[in-house]
């Protein structure tokens, strides 16, 4: 039965997913197992997105289903939840002067389902906030997102601030979104440009040394 939840979630069967979760909770099953199955289901969603079978609507919908499952399960959780082992830390955010986050959230989703510990700083992130977070987490990878042209300079300034803080050589920086490309990567002196969320995942894997 546990396999059912994985596939029902991956297939985005809302009614059946919620029905099954309720049934399993009523049967007194350990809530943590339900959450583990949900994570496996989400991994399949991420895989289907990477394969071009799913698109943004499916990611959004699956995220909503996961939220509903978590809300149902939460009251039944006792003790501390065991954390699944994560591959490594990645800090991401949309640079200062830019308030777009659709792409940012896709990258967040894909890094997460691929096993990374993601610190998402949100939009219009000041240079100092990136520096502070990189210091605090010691994350080896930073992802800068931007949609519009003001992001060109904001990315450049963010990279420069990290250089100034003496952190630059401890990390790899990837950029992506809207009008970003290899030209902007050169301009901002980042390490790589990724054209989509799958590129972000493979860059992070490459840099963090997992495959």
């Amino acid at each position, binding site marked *: 039965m546990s396999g059912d939840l994985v596939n029902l979630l991956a297939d*985005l069967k*809302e009614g059946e997913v919620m029905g099954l979760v309720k049934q399993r909770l009523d049967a007194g099953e350990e809530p943590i197992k339900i959450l583990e199955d949900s994570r496996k289901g989400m991994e399949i969603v991420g895989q289907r997105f990477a394969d071009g079978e*799913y*698109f*943004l*609507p499916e990611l*959004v*919908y699956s995220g*909503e289903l996961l939220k509903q499952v978590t809300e149902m399960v939460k009251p039944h959780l006792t003790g501390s939840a065991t954390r699944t082992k994560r591959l490594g830390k990645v800090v991401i955010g949309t640079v*200062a*002067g*830019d*308030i*777009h*986050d*659709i792409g940012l959230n896709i990258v967040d989703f894909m890094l997460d389902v691929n096993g990374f510990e993601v610190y998402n700083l949100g939009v*219009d992130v000041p240079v100092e906030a990136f520096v502070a977070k990189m210091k605090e987490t010691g994350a080896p990878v930073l992802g800068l997102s931007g949609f*519009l*042209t*003001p992001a*060109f300079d904001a990315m450049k300034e963010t990279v420069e601030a990290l250089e100034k803080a003496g952190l630059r050589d401890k990390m790899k920086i990837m950029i992506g979104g*809207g*009008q*970003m*490309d290899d*030209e*902007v990567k*050169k*301009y901002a002196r980042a390490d790589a440009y990724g054209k*989509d969320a799958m590129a972000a995942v493979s860059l992070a894997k490459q840099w963090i040394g997992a495959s």
Partner: protein
Amino acid sequence: MEKQWAELTPDEKREERFKRWLSPRGVTFSSPEAEKAYKERVTRLIRALKVQEPDRVPCILPASNFPAYYAGTDLRTVMYDYDELKRAWLKFLHEIGDQDTFFGPVMVPPGRALEAVDYKLYKWPGHGLAGNTTTYQCVEGEYMKADEYDDLIKDPSNFWLRIYLPRVFGAFEPLRNIPPFTTIEEIAIMSFVPYGLPDVQAAFEALLKAGRESLKWAAVVGEVSQEALELGFPGIMSGLAKAPFDTLGDTLRGTQGIMMDMFQRPAKLQEAMERITPLTIDSALSSIGPSSAPIIMMPLHKGADGFMSEKQYETFYWPTLKKVVMSLVNEGIVPILFAEGSYNRRLDIIKELPKASVAWYFDQTDMARAKEVLGGKACLIGNVPTSLIMTGTPQQVKEHCRKLIEVCGPGGGYVLAGGANIDEGNPDNLRAMMEAAKEYGVYK
């Protein structure tokens, strides 16, 4: 006897509109040379839009807020200081040199009007964004709740006035409490009472203030456009329209909301888009002036590659967009469909539109493939990368233009343009685009 407008075929209507664009009423050209140049430029654009060979490839310079920065000021300033707005755009007009079309400052909104109504849908420099930001940006949100589809479908005007507008304009909050206008019937007994309430009066005061401010702004924008016309530079965009999916997805339900709706309430979503479609068409048609360019720009957002599958595009995005497009085409308008992001996976769907009816303005789409699929069928516009225009050298820009012209130019139906617009950068990169059009874009 001349045929009445309604009796004309779409082609005849378009020819008539093109004729008016070529000989605009109310324009006294500054010189015979300016008039000649104007007619040459408009003819060049018309031939490209009709997928024919003009004398050479026309070029649209991708300079949205660029004139502000070129003139040493910034977006924040020109949103509030209309003298500076005018100075900047005229300086750009006079100094940038030859260009095939000129964009007036119509996309720079009057800051004080937005403040008067406490506009929440956008952030702009000094108002939610750092003062030196070069663009204004939309604040994504759920401005229409999932359970409000029926309100919108039943009576869009009432939904807009009393539910949507109070959410995006803080000053309109009291309008929630006025009755729908359709309740005003027969002798007005109670009808005006709500308008006597102090908070409702304050809402209307705010609206009046925004109106007064906008009028001042519009006069200045008009002066700039008029001067450009008199000097022989035609405008190319008379109005904007959106795909009904984007209307709902951008500023009503939000990206998150509309994508949930595709699964949870697809029938309501379809019904709402159908309801919005005729409103979009009417709004676009009413923005075309008697002798302005018969062109409606349609920025397309959430149907781009990656945002949805081909099947979802064909189910949710394309049908109502096509209705809007074809209604405009049938009125003799040329829609320029500006596909933001990339549209590589849409080419085989969008190719079904009638020959030479629309122009496709591509941002990051592969132009060689676009030419292969749409060449001879639709005018193609684009797409020098924005990053190159902002950070590259004039030589690099010119070289990129040469390659684009080689790919897209043959047979006509091509306009050289940027992928998106730039706000800052080297003005010589814009001049390099014009040079490239003249040097490599001549049809023999």
